[in-house]
């Protein structure tokens, strides 16, 4: 079942075409990885879908609703939730309060918040100001906020960046588990995370999608290899 449909999406910054006529669909409960070299347009694409940016052309349809002209907070309330590559939390608020802000929009109860905190093993830090937490825990809070919003489509922007080997392994486990209940799209550079997680991989380069398929197909795709190993 199609949960997200993107048609002919484009965005330019002055002369530079960051996203060039991108079209694809996401199926429900499928874990999709979005990969590509730096500057390929992955984050811009996500910004367009989550309405952080306005598209120049194209349409975005989420669960049958045309969200192309909606504001970011409306889109979030409809169920498209994203995390940020560079952690963007409310620094002066506590862990609990960070999640609570999200919960207020999605109607998540206090019990559910505590559930999320214990799943992410953050209960100890419930009343700690987020600014005082180490980086790895902040990433978890970022994830916690996303979960507290009760997402139907969760887009994660480089969730593994900066994590240690063990943390990455538990991240994969956590996301795989999440993927059974929520449709996931993950932007990643770490191939271990990508291949350990994805049901489907979309490859972008220079604003266009150049490959889209199952992990085995992608790893043997000539074009992709060229970009990553050849000229990349």
């Amino acid at each position, binding site marked *: 079942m199609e949960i997200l449909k993107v048609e002919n999406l484009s965005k330019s910054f002055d002369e530079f075409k960051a996203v060039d006529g991108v079209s694809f669909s996401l199926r429900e409960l499928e874990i999709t990885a979005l990969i590509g070299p730096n500057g390929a347009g992955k984050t811009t694409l996500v910004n367009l879908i989550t309405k952080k940016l306005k598209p120049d052309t194209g349409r975005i349809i989420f669960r049958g609703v045309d969200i192309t002209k909606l504001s*970011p*907070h409306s889109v979030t309330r409809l169920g498209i939730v994203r995390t940020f590559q560079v952690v*963007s939390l*409310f620094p*002066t608020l506590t862990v609990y*309060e960070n999640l609570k*802000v*999200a919960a207020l929009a999605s109607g998540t109860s206090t019990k559910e918040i505590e559930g999320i905190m214990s799943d992410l093993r953050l209960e100890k830090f419930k009343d700690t100001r987020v600014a005082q937490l180490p980086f790895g825990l902040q990433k978890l809070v970022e994830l916690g*906020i996303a979960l507290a919003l009760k997402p139907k489509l969760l887009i994660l922007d480089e969730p593994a960046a900066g994590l240690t080997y063990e943390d990455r392994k538990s991240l994969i486990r956590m996301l795989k588990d999440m993927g059974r209940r929520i449709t996931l799209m993950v932007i990643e550079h770490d191939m271990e995370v990508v291949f350990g997680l994805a049901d489907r991989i979309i490859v972008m380069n220079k604003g266009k999608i150049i490959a889209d398929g199952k992990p085995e197909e992608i790893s043997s795709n000539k074009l992709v290899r060229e970009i990553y190993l050849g000229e990349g």
Partner: protein
Amino acid sequence: MVIRDINLALIIALTALLLLVPLTGDRFYIYITSLFMIYSLFALSYNLLFGYAGLLSFGHAMFFAVGAYTTALFTLKVLRDPLAGLVVGVLSSIPVALVVGFLTLRHTRVYFAILTLAFGMLVYALLVKWRSVTGGTDGLIGIPKRGVVIDISSPTAYYLFILTFFTITTIGLYLFIKSRWGLLVRALGANEDRLPFTGRSPLFIRLYTFLVSGLTASLSGSLYAIFMGVVTPDIAYWTFSAEPLVMTLLGGASYYLGPVLGAFTFIILTTILARYAEYWLLLLGLAVIAIVIGFRGGLGGMLVSTFYTVRERSGVWIRWRYSRLKI
């Protein structure tokens, strides 16, 4: 009864202290403390906007003046009663907050600051030019303390009148900040850009914060009008908008009661020091500079860090006793 929240405890303690003042019978003390309470409310309203929501405004005097002038006009022309005048004065801030807020809050913080300056001065110009209604630069006089509903002409009476509103508003505002609405305001100030991606509209939050802040500021203005008996346009001039800002900075913008501490310090400086030092404004300017460069926590910050230092150094016993307090 154990009050676990230190701010509430402080407010109650402060109210108790303030109740003692009229017992001294000294008119000057009563006068000064009344002014302190009025300025505290003004500064608290300002900090809601500035410290919690991160919105710097140079036109806050607009609310103060609107409240004051509306109260004055109402009691002089419609119904001679201070309480009624107060209510009307406070309510008059609602249309102002909605209109000005709707027009100015959709901009970035910097433009908002400048826009508030423009709007604030617009109100000032209106007050000065519309002589037939506002009395121009002479203002309005004869605002009554003795009215149909209540009579607060004696110093003790009007003092208690002000004190009642002071305590109720200070506690009420605090409860607001602790509520879900307040949480969103704090989130706005902490990271506005993240809010849309947590499902909330920053503009909406800015609007209701502006409204609450405006209501409180107008309340302080109305109290001022009744207290002084006179209103003049200078309470709308932009330099008056800067006063709650300075008070907030002095006391510490990140503490709820910081503005109250700042208002206290400010009044001490302006009344007492002003008698001895002609150039107290100079000291104020230097204090602002020093605070911005060095002590952004203000006096409140200094007090709190002293508290923690004392706590660390005094050993286990004090640590146990104070561990239940949350600052």
